[in-house]
């Protein structure tokens, strides 16, 4: 039989590729890679809409079992504080007795650090109370609690 007739069809992909590259550049520039979380924490819900600052954040994480972890968002500071093996980790497990000195050292290296407590909703209040008392003794009287926005 006769050959099937093919219709040549050309589509100009240039605009799509342009947009693709634009988006790629945008996402590449706006991405900051987060280190892996130290502990699984389910954040409590509240109505507060205050946003966490982008940089200079020091996080005290308390997980469900009541273990305390300290982390800072800056890699260099992390290395200087905890040692080079922790550069790529979000935080280090600490005890409440070590916490004051680490907080002090961190704040000497970067006085602009904001302290944030990220605790599991089911964590015992006693641990958080201990953390808050430590902060208070270190003269960090203004800090934030990480919460999720209520939907």
């Amino acid at each position: 039989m006769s050959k099937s007739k093919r219709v040549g069809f050309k589509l100009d992909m240039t605009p799509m590729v342009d947009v693709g590259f634009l988006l790629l550049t945008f996402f590449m520039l706006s991405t900051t890679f987060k280190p892996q979380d130290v502990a699984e924490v389910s954040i409590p819900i509240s109505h507060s809409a205050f946003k966490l600052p982008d940089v200079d954040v020091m996080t005290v994480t308390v997980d469900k079992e009541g273990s305390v972890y300290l982390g800072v968002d800056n890699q260099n500071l992390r290395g200087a504080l905890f040692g080079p093996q922790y550069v790529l980790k979000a935080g280090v497990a600490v005890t409440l007795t070590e916490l004051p000195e680490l907080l002090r050292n961190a704040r000497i290296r970067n006085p602009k650090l904001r302290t944030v407590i990220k605790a599991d909703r089911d964590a015992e209040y006693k641990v958080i109370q201990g953390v808050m008392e430590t902060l208070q003794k270190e003269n960090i009287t203004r800090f934030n609690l990480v919460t999720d926005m209520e939907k």
Partner: protein
Amino acid sequence: MADVDLSQSKGKQKHGGKKKRKRIAVRVDMTPMVDVAFLLLTFFMLTTSMSKPQTMEINLPPADQNAEVAASNLMTLRITDDFRIFWNIGEEKPTTVDGANKKERLINLGKLLKDRNRANPKLITLIKVDGKAKYIDMVDVMDELNINEISRFSLAPMKDEDKKQIGTL
């Protein structure tokens, strides 16, 4: 992948009627590059988290500073581990906040806080949470304070005498 088209390489005439340019057309197949670009685009789109976490701000007085507050201006909230709320102003006997479950009690607490603060704008709220209570309990109470725009509050540890007062010890 890439080829050079020489078919139009002859006949460059600058002066004359027609203006033909000498051109070596280079054609590069961009498909693999575009493929990679879109792959990366997808990757970055999926890994980016745009929303920043929300936070709740707390201001506590410094540890070495003891503020003297008149008893009538001090409202104490005591939260037990099973989320019963006791409140009193000054030296009054603690009373519970009604409600069958946590949600109702929180709503009633909100109303109570609003009324009390309207009655006395100088009221300072002191929150004492039992050590065995959950963190979420404390956040819920603080949230209730924030919703009612009560910024003058402080946190204090629950001592045994507090427990005695509310009858849980």
